[in-house]
């Protein structure tokens, strides 16, 4: 029975991680936006405004649940739950450190990819259930964009999987560092099984994956509905997009899902391309930096550090670039990213055939 208790404990700890991460990243986002726009950001609540997000949460919890009279009440109530659960389930397969993964499965990559697509359905549910034309427009835009950008993201992921030769996220992690079980080569010629560090990451094992990672990163921004791809919630034309009608805790759940999604796609990309929980320091001669900095706690530290860095870049981009128009968004996806992703796929195949 202890077995099942552990399952609940794992689920609870993932949930609390998402909650704490969202709290802190909302604060970080405000401070980063303030820095970029030459303001101070929140300064009133607590030292440097540190307690601002707690005040926000308190406000959200106190708020009344408002259901519009003509809304489809069942769909309206269920939608935030579906959106959140879809993202929450994605975290199940992501490994945190050597031997530390909530659920080890041999098709982890495919699982994460599949479960993320459920979020689109939750968004459509919210948009339709609100019975508000702005919500519906936002939802339709959001889903159209998510479905289109899944294609370049998918091909970028497949080109990394072809290099890693496994769909198990933990195996992909192992084969990007000193714990590798198969032969790994820096740029395809220098064997780095003993050296490890940054040289063994997938993007440095085969350099075309850098392009694949950039494609994946752009597509992942679109899948989180983050700027510059945030036309689903374009304030100037659609008010709040699909979550216009939501109040209180329901809105908080949509918000939580958005931030959790940012971390999920960042961590997924880090695992596939940037070495996951592997250390960036290589072994240099007798200076065994990689050996020192590999382990359970180091693993958590590295994967967190890398993912948070990517999340910070996502925020930086949001406050720097202007929003794209719908037609620009679609032509970027279909005319630039998709052909490039196909090229990466072919390059991965040739790389495998010619160098191994």
């Amino acid at each position: 029975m202890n077995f099942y208790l552990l399952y609940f404990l794992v689920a609870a700890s993932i949930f609390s991680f998402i909650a704490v991460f969202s709290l802190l990243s909302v604060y970080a986002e405000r401070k980063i936006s303030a820095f970029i726009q030459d303001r101070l950001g929140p300064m009133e609540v607590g030292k440097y405004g540190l307690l601002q997000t707690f005040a926000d949460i308190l406000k959200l919890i106190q708020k009344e649940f408002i259901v519009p009279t003509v809304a489809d009440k069942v769909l309206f109530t269920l939608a935030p739950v579906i959106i959140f659960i879809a993202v929450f389930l994605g975290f199940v397969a992501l490994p945190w450190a050597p031997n530390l993964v909530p659920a080890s499965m041999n098709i982890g990559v495919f699982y994460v990819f599949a479960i993320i697509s459920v979020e689109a359905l939750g968004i459509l549910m919210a948009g339709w259930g609100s019975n508000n034309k702005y919500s519906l427009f936002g939802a339709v835009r959001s889903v159209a964009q998510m479905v289109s950008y899944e294609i370049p993201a998918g091909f970028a992921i497949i080109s990394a999987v072809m290099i890693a030769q496994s769909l198990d996220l933990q195996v992909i992690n192992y084969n990007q560092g000193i714990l590798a079980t198969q032969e790994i080569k820096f740029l395809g010629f220098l064997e780095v099984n003993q050296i490890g560090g940054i040289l063994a990451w997938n993007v440095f094992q085969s350099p075309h994956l850098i392009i694949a990672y950039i494609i994946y990163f752009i597509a992942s921004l679109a899948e989180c509905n983050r700027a510059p791809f945030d036309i689903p919630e374009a304030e100037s034309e659609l008010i709040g997009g699909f979550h216009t009608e939501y109040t209180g805790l329901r809105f908080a759940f949509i918000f939580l899902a958005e931030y959790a999604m940012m971390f999920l796609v960042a961590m997924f990309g880090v695992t596939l391309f940037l070495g996951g929980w592997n250390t960036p320091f290589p072994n240099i001669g007798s200076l065994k930096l990689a050996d020192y900095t590999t382990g359970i706690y180091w693993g958590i530290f590295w994967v967190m550090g890398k993912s948070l860095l990517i999340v910070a870049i996502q925020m930086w981009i949001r406050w720097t670039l202007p929003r794209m128009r719908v037609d620009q968004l679609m032509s970027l996806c279909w005319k630039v990213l998709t052909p490039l992703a196909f090229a990466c796929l072919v390059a991965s195949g040739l790389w495998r055939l010619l160098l191994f």
Partner: protein
Amino acid sequence: MDVAQIIFYILAAIAVLSGVFVVSSGHLVRSVFMFFVTLFAVAGLYVFALADFVALTQVVIYVGGVLVLLLFAFMLSNKESLDGFGKISSGLLSTNRLAGVIISFAFLFILVMIFSKIDFESLNWIKASQLSGNVKTVTDDTIKNIGVNMMSKYLLPLEMVSILLMMALIGAAHIARKESHE
């Protein structure tokens, strides 16, 4: 009864009940969303059959693709034509439903008959594969097997499917293209 069995029966019950809701509900959008629950429950049942790849493919293709397409088609069609569906007579023996009723009863009859006649524990091919050790366990890497078979034994069907998809893509692009008016 262990936990896995309880989960199996819960999933089966969800699949059946939500399936009944999908066909009996008069509310079209809710039916489509309920269909999502059915598909998810069936995906869960696939996992119990050690077909985890099929389960995930079901989620990707049906939930991420077909259901979203259904909803889009629904949202883009006009309200009057959808209201027309409500006016079609819905008695069990009305002419537009009679054929469906007969077919479904016949199918139910076949299923019940097979279920009552066959002893699933002692089928010949199951016994044979148990004897020869040709069985799957929970920890087996099924995906590798699928990949190898796709690229060797079933290469021709795979290529045929990809040509079919290519034709569909070209057709879609042709329909969507702007006609130049001469």
